[in-house]
């Protein structure tokens, strides 16, 4: 430790050891191994590259990304942005990326909620609850994901046709064409309300911070949630009302053999989402359980002996320590879910892999197609990793 009172004699720097040119020298060995590894990897990359270039020349395949501006002529059932088969490959691939993100983002949120719930259930003192959670985790983790996805897709296919569709609530239909729900006609006022809600979250966070600072100054704890609720919910409602409170609902209705209007969740998306969420939740449950168990019961006891109530113990003592154990494996589960979403190909959900696959079949631009898939996954994965690493660093334990 940097102690100001240390005797100056002990401040001497350690001596530098001269490099000995001998195989017995640990550092010489290290350098030799590093040179060898770099050399071998470099040679392999060079060989792959020259081989590819040679093969492309022999087969007279033009390389480059020029095909992206050509018409795709490729039908896509689900798209978050307007899309037509006459659009370009670039737009088709963008639709694919958005479809991947749609399943990954929603999947990560739902898997975290479900996994945390099951992980806590497994720690329950109630015998039945903990056994059910344990059974779920074991079964889900032992079956291959592809099998589970096919199972859910079969379940979706087994639903009745549109004409016999289940109609549990007015305006909601469940059939083998998916789940149909009433939808709000989206207008500028709704976008404004969403933005107001985001602003409300930021303001609530700032308010919480200042309330905490005031508590530190005068000791009086302040109730944060009434103001937070007002900001996060009240603000968007006020904005929406101010903009004339537009409210047009589009109801789904059976026309011929299919539904028109409303909002739909396709059976392919539902099967993929349910499969990914239930599968990943099994792993997240174990991560959460291990994280909570990693906090010694002595921590609970010491905090309670000091007079803190359970809620405060959880918030101030247990969670900060458990999160440090939970975050790193959580990151790899998020990455797994995202990468596993490429199994969408198997059940006909058009994600980036599916669309890039069709593209490279139609254009013959295999290398570019694979490169695009790799670039997309790399970008998404790196973004998740960077965010989680940032979060982890923020709460990192300085010393144990």
């Amino acid at each position: 430790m940097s102690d100001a009172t240390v005797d100056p004699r002990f401040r001497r720097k350690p001596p530098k050891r001269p490099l000995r040119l001998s195989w017995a020298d640990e550092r010489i060995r290290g350098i030799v191994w590093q040179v060898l590894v770099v050399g071998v990897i470099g040679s392999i990359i060079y060989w792959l590259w020259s081989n590819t270039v040679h093969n492309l020349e022999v087969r007279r395949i033009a390389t480059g990304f020029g095909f992206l501006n050509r018409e795709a002529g490729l039908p896509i059932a689900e798209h978050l942005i307007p899309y037509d088969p006459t659009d370009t490959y670039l737009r088709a691939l963008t639709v694919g990326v958005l479809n991947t993100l749609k399943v990954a983002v929603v999947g990560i949120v739902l898997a975290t909620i479900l996994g945390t719930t099951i992980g806590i259930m497994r720690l329950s003192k109630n015998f039945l609850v903990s056994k059910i959670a344990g059974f779920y985790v074991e079964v889900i983790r032992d079956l291959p994901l592809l099998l589970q996805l096919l199972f859910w897709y079969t379940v979706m296919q087994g639903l009745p046709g549109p004409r016999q569709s289940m109609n549990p609530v007015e305006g909601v239909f469940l059939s083998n064409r998916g789940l149909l729900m009433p939808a709000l006609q989206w207008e500028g006022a709704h976008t404004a309300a969403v933005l107001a809600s985001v602003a409300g979250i930021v303001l609530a966070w700032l308010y919480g911070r200042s309330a905490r600072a005031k508590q530190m100054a005068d000791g009086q704890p302040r109730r944060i949630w009434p103001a937070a609720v007002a900001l996060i919910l009240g603000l968007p409602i006020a904005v929406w009302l101010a903009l004339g409170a537009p409210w047009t609902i589009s109801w789904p209705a059976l026309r011929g053999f299919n539904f028109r209007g409303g909002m739909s969740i396709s059976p392919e998306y539902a099967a993929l989402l349910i499969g990914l969420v239930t599968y990943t939740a099994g792993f997240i449950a174990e991560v959460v359980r291990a994280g909570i168990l990693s906090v010694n019961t002595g921590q609970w006891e010491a905090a309670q002996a000091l007079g803190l109530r359970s809620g405060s113990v959880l918030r101030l003592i247990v969670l900060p320590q458990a999160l440090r154990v939970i975050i790193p494996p959580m990151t790899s589960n998020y990455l797994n879910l995202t990468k596993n979403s490429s199994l969408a190909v198997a059940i006909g959900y058009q994600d980036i892999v599916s669309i890039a696959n069709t593209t490279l079949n139609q254009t013959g631009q295999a290398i570019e197609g694979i490169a695009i898939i790799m670039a997309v996954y790399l970008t998404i994965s790196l973004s998740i990793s960077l965010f989680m690493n940032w979060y982890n660093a923020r709460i990192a334990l300085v010393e144990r």
Partner: protein
Amino acid sequence: MTRAGPEAGAVPAPRFTHTATNDLGHETKMSAALETDGFIASSVRTDAPPAIVLDKVNKWFGALHVLRDVDLQVALGERVVVCGPSGSGKSTMIRCINRLETHQEGRILVDGIELSDDLRALDAIRREVGMVFQSFNLFPHLTVLENCTLAPIWVRKMPKKHAEELAMEYLTRVKIPEQAKKYPGQLSGGQQQRVAIARALCMKPKIMLFDEPTSALDPEMIKEVLDTMVMLAAEGMTMICVTHEMGFARQVADRVVFMDRGEIVESGTPEAVFNDPKTERLQLFLSQILRGH
């Protein structure tokens, strides 16, 4: 009631401090009471109502009967040392006093308040009772200072600045103010236990419970923790200490309680209990302790 301590106001009989492991007479920075006598004058207040009352307390873990009709009264300012073989229920008894364990029969009163399911009574009691554990149980993600200010801020609703001043005061008392910004993992065991004592004191408790505070420490660190406890005793703190440090018991205890198999078997002054054991169980226990040391 089996109290056998010196009467209030009476001059206590001199006691011996003769174990080699913690000969506290050599400590130079001790409080005045220690420098002169080597033992501490009794601070028992028989005029005030008792600080702790255990009345026919029974407890089971499943089918295991761990506390059997335990009766114990601790007066304000009294220092009780509890000893007994491992598994005899010493920890369970003192953990019942701040309700880290719940008893199933009998009554426990702390500072006049009866322990029950009433959360407000529990809050009030935990505020008055500090506890020090064998395994320190410091919060590893908080600095030494934050460990000490946590409860004053969140339980006593103290402004942070006051809490920090208070914490520095107690860290100075346990002689580690320079470690305030460090994390518990950077300290030695003895230093960690002293932080744990300071952390408990920051709540200004009326009663302190110690559960084998030196059992997890290397021999050279035992003394620094015992010295801190002697200092507390000299200030008149009401204390219950589970410990096998006989030198400490002889020096500070008004009363030694011997437990075995969930029962209080013998109770009396350190001399009476250590020099003149009445029961076979205590004789056996003392012979084992002395052989172990």
